[in-house]
């Protein structure tokens, strides 16, 4: 499968994520869209790693393309931690303003 397919899929996912973040006001949906963007990038990372391995098969080259595939797992772990923190923030926000609409978060404005 050509690597461009992966790139197009990742770009599409990323754009969906960006549009979601920009258009929605529900904090949880925004959060999910952020995760979507994160995973689009993860997908790119894995795709490029695969492409690297095809161009330079194991044994013939110095650069080992498998690094990124391992790196993605680390990103997932960190993302999981981040999700827990983010959800906790949303819970706190709900406790304070009884809403998870981000447009309520303008109390510092005045």
């Amino acid at each position: 499968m050509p690597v461009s397919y992966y790139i197009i899929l990742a770009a599409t996912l990323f754009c969906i994520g960006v549009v979601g973040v920009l258009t929605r006001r529900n904090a949880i949906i925004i959060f999910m869209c952020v995760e979507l963007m994160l995973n689009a990038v993860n997908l790119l990372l894995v795709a490029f790693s695969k492409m690297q391995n095809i161009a330079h098969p194991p044994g013939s080259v110095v650069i080992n393309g498998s690094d990124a595939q391992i790196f993605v797992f680390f990103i997932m772990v960190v993302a999981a931690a981040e999700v827990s923190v983010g959800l906790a923030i949303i819970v706190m926000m709900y406790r304070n303003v009884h809403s998870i609409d981000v447009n309520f978060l303008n109390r510092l404005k005045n």
Partner: protein
Amino acid sequence: MNTIIFCIPLLPFLGFLLTGIFRNYLSRQLCGIIASGTIFISFLLVLYVFFNHAYSPEAITYFDFISNPLLRISFAFQVDQLSTLFMLIITGVGFLIHVYSTAYMHEETPAHYARFFSYLNLFVFSMLLLVLGANYVIMFVGWEGVGICSYLLIGYWFKNNQYNYAARKAFVMNRIGDVGFLLAIFWIISKFGSADYSVVFSNATTIDTAEITGITILLFVGAIGKSAQIPLYTWLPDAMAGPTPVSALIHAATMVTAGIYMVARSNVLYSLSPVSMGIVAIIGLATALLAASIALFQNDIKKVLAYSTVSQLGFMFIALGVGAYTTGVFHVMTHAFFKALLFLGAGSVIHAMGGEQDITKMGGLRKKTPITYWTFLIAVLAISGFPFTSGFISKDEIIIAAYSYSKPIFWLTSFAAVLTSFYMFRLLMLVFFGSFRGTPDQEKHLHESPAAMTIPLIILAVLSALGGFIQLPHVFGGHDYLNEFLAPVVPAFSHGTEDIAMREYYLLGATIIGLLIVFVLTRKWYAVSTFEGKYSGFKNVLAHKWYIDELYDGLIVNPFTNFAGFLKSKIENSGIDGLVNGIGRFIRYLSRQVRLVQSGLVGNYILIMVLSITVLFLVFWNQDVLMGFLQKIF
């Protein structure tokens, strides 16, 4: 001896410090004692110097005033006959006026009373510095010192804005003259490499006459300002805003004669430049005539005396201009006696009248204030040139010297002398003869002044009457003691070979006849019971001082204030303030617009972030195109 000489100006300075610093704690008596006492001790020290003949052509150097590789100006005193004579006048008359002031100023609060005396002491200090200095720079220090004291004392009653304006006028006019003096000092230093009198006078002949003329004219500009000559004389009549003893001390007896002292001191330079001397004589003559004509129809007792002072200073400059330096100095001395007496007498009259200065409201004070009347009469006789009073002998000499110099100057000077006697007798008649024209309250209040005021009057009256005898001409059996005394510093005037004795007798006769006519006329016109003080025609022009003040206001003061007003309203308010405020307003407007971006909505922030990142990516991808485009532009 050096220490004693140093103490002469130091004592009044100490008096200034004491009365000035402790003005809130000193009682009036103590303050008067300190102020008068320091001057009196100075006077005794001057007498000691005088009787010990402690003169030397060498300057006494105390320390370096200015010292650098190019120029060295020492703080040095020159004690010679000329400076000693001036010191005698300053401390002697100064002491009498201090004593007089202790009584005259009795209505002031102690703090203001002390302020008055501290200024007065500072003035005496500055004036002594002026005459003692052994170079032009020290003279200039004193010169400026007396200027500031004059300013402070004219504006002594600072709650009256009119007086403040008068003080400012005096100060500004003096400054104009001072610029000339300062330029002359610079010129002297650049030519002689020193400002010391000894260096300058001994090398004067080595300098080009044109340059000497320039220097002497600039020096004379300084004298014009300080000694109130045309065109800078208008400050002196306004300076009458100050207390009367101040008018007597500063604006009659001492400070205004600083210009005469300076010219007499620089006689070596002036003698080398006939052009400058001619200018001095002509300015002096013009001032003497103009001021005398104005004095004829003034209704303020102090204004009459002020214009009289300007006129008498003109006489002194005539004497200097025709080369009779000692005569000029002699007239300074006699003038100090009789003009101080006139002012103090006027002060006594004003005191008796309860502050009234308008002579149309006086009259018949002869009986109520006998001592003031008799002393004032002696002063009037002296200034009018009654035979053998001090004023006669000094003015006589001026007129005779003018005759030897030029006939027109002689006639005009004589005419000015006649005017002098006329306005003085007019004043005498209006104040002391006729009948009282004031309010009944004032008439009830009339009284003779206390002893502290009358004793100085009597002493000055004796000096006015007899002070001239030290210079009695040979014709009348006298001996020119003053000429001899001053000979080492100031050369005596040589009359040539013409017959002086005859002229003296002619003048004596003419004076007696003239005074009789003036007496009869003024008695007829001014010893009256009602006096309006209104004039018409040419008299009105004279009463309005030839409209010179209005002319100056129209030509210089008003355009200047208008220009300043234009600068304030247009350049300052609209221009500079507008620019500064405009920058502020622009920034505020801009920030108000930018502030709207910060809406507090998370969505907006994210949108801006996304757009910015997109733009950055676009720029990054197309940077080659952009760089090429930028290079094309620049």
